[in-house]
């Protein structure tokens, strides 16, 4: 059982406290969405949990093993990680970018072994990229590029997926498409942790919401229990109310 657990993670850099005793877990079959305003420590929590950033105190474990002790490729084989997207350095073909998801398995571009090539093909089909496989990534739309990054993560065939704002700058239809892809990954037995800013969308897809504010996790539970008008005003500093079971946000507090 590959369970990712963060226990009392603290992170302070140059006197600024970025994380305070943050604890949570992620297991296969869960779609957990991390919510919180800018600067709440969401990205710090992800990086520290993955072991990319050393915590000031506390530790994160993957299947019982400290993530800081895992080699980068061991970690990458078990957790696919999509950071906030940066432009690609070169105009590579879509299939080559997806194949980089097999890097931790030892794949070399242009010389994929049977297993790697099959995983890449499955990911390309799953993300509906077959017709774009030979296209250059600099000719793709934002929505297509987001699917390419999803396919890259799926190609790893890791048990867990962590994605930092995978739907940033996408139109509503493409946001739904990306979340549908991730949901089917979870339905197939994966576990996903996503950072999102669209609360309605988060409530629709998440099995659990983790709410962060000023470096702390202030709530962790199913949307039905943790999504309230009070929590929204507290975490995001917006005035919110429930109207016939629907959440309405009126403006900044």
């Amino acid at each position, binding site marked *: 059982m590959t369970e990712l657990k963060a226990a009392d993670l603290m992170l302070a850099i140059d006197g600024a406290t970025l994380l305070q005793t943050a604890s949570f877990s992620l297991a296969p079959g869960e779609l957990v969405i991390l919510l919180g305003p800018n600067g709440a420590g969401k990205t710090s929590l992800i990086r520290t949990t*993955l072991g*990319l950033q050393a915590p000031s105190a506390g530790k994160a474990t993957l299947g019982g093993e400290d993530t800081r002790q895992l*080699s*980068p*490729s*061991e*970690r*990458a*084989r078990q957790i*696919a*990680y*999509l*950071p*906030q997207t*940066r*432009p*690609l*350095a*070169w*105009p*590579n*073909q879509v299939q*080559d*970018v997806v194949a*980089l*998801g097999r*890097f*931790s398995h030892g794949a*070399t*571009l*242009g010389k994929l072994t049977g297993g790697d090539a099959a995983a890449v093909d499955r990911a390309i089909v799953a993300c509906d990229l077959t017709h774009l496989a030979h296209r250059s990534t600099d000719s793709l739309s934002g929505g297509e590029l987001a699917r390419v990054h999803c396919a*890259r993560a799926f190609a*790893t065939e890791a048990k867990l997926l962590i994605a930092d704002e995978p739907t940033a700058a996408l139109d509503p239809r493409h946001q739904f498409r990306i979340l549908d892809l991730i949901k089917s990954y979870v339905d197939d037995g994966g576990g996903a942790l996503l950072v999102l800013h669209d609360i309605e969308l988060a409530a629709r897809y998440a099995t659990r919401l983790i709410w962060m504010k000023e470096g702390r996790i202030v709530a962790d539970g199913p949307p039905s229990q943790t999504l309230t008008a009070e929590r929204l005003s507290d975490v995001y500093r917006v005035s919110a109310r429930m109207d016939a079971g629907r959440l309405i946000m009126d403006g900044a507090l």
Partner: protein
Amino acid sequence: MIERWLTPGLILLCVLAIFAACLLGSTAMPLERVLAAFFGGADVSDRLVVWTIRLPRALAAFLTGAALGISGAALQGLLRNPLAEPGVLGVSASASLTATFALYFGLVALNPWILPFAAITGALIATALLALAATRTQSVVTLILIGVGLSSFSGALMSLLMNLAPNPFSLSDMINWMLGSVANRSFDEIGLALPFIAGGAALLLVTRRGLSALTLGEEAASGVGLNLQRQRIWTVLGAGLATGGSVALAGAIGFVGIVAPHVIRPFVRHDPARSLIPSALLAGLILVVADIFVRILPSTNELKLGVVAALIGAPAFVWIAMQRRAGHD
């Protein structure tokens, strides 16, 4: 399809160019006499011209270009920037500085081998500084800025040395070194530079796979399982050794390290890892051909190879820079 024939094709062209370099010169030598010099039966003066003058000179041009081409391709992959080159990171400048230093203090008069050793020392000092910086910073921009600083500082010290040159002869020696040339190189000098060039190239080839992952950016490359710091150190060290060897052999020759990978990239589907070997071959080919032109041009003073390389390379550099789209930082 082109990709499959790219490397064999370039190897063939390089062999042909090196052979052509043995035919051509201030006095062209007929084909049968060159063949005889290679395979026996030629008279002593022909063998001398081919084996001690033309062949070592062509091989030196090839090795210099290959070292700069593979270093440029690897550094571009590491820094995700098509304008990166040993020159940008200050490695060439540092190597030239220590070489000039040895010339200035007349150390070369004590022992001719001091010159190449000085160049390699300079390159290694620069790469050691960069490797140290690479373990402390996460940022590529910081690394490039350190390289720019290193380059400027070496340039300043070099100007100082030239400013204080005791006599016109040492000044002209230094200028020769800074301009870059493979004239009068012997197999001895090649033998001294080759271990560094080969070692550096081997290091770059062994660790090239990580350069593909860096296409995604550093954070995502770590995400797919790349050990980022190790990759930085190996690439910087490999490029430093190869560049140091090339400066030891030919002085400072700029821009081939930028031009060759830029031409190669579209043929290897823009994969930095697959661009290393073809870039090395093409850069070697460019310098061999450029050196043939230097030798057959009917000028009173023979042009320096570095000058010709810069005359072609600098406009290409500006052109490549202007092709860059916004958003690629």
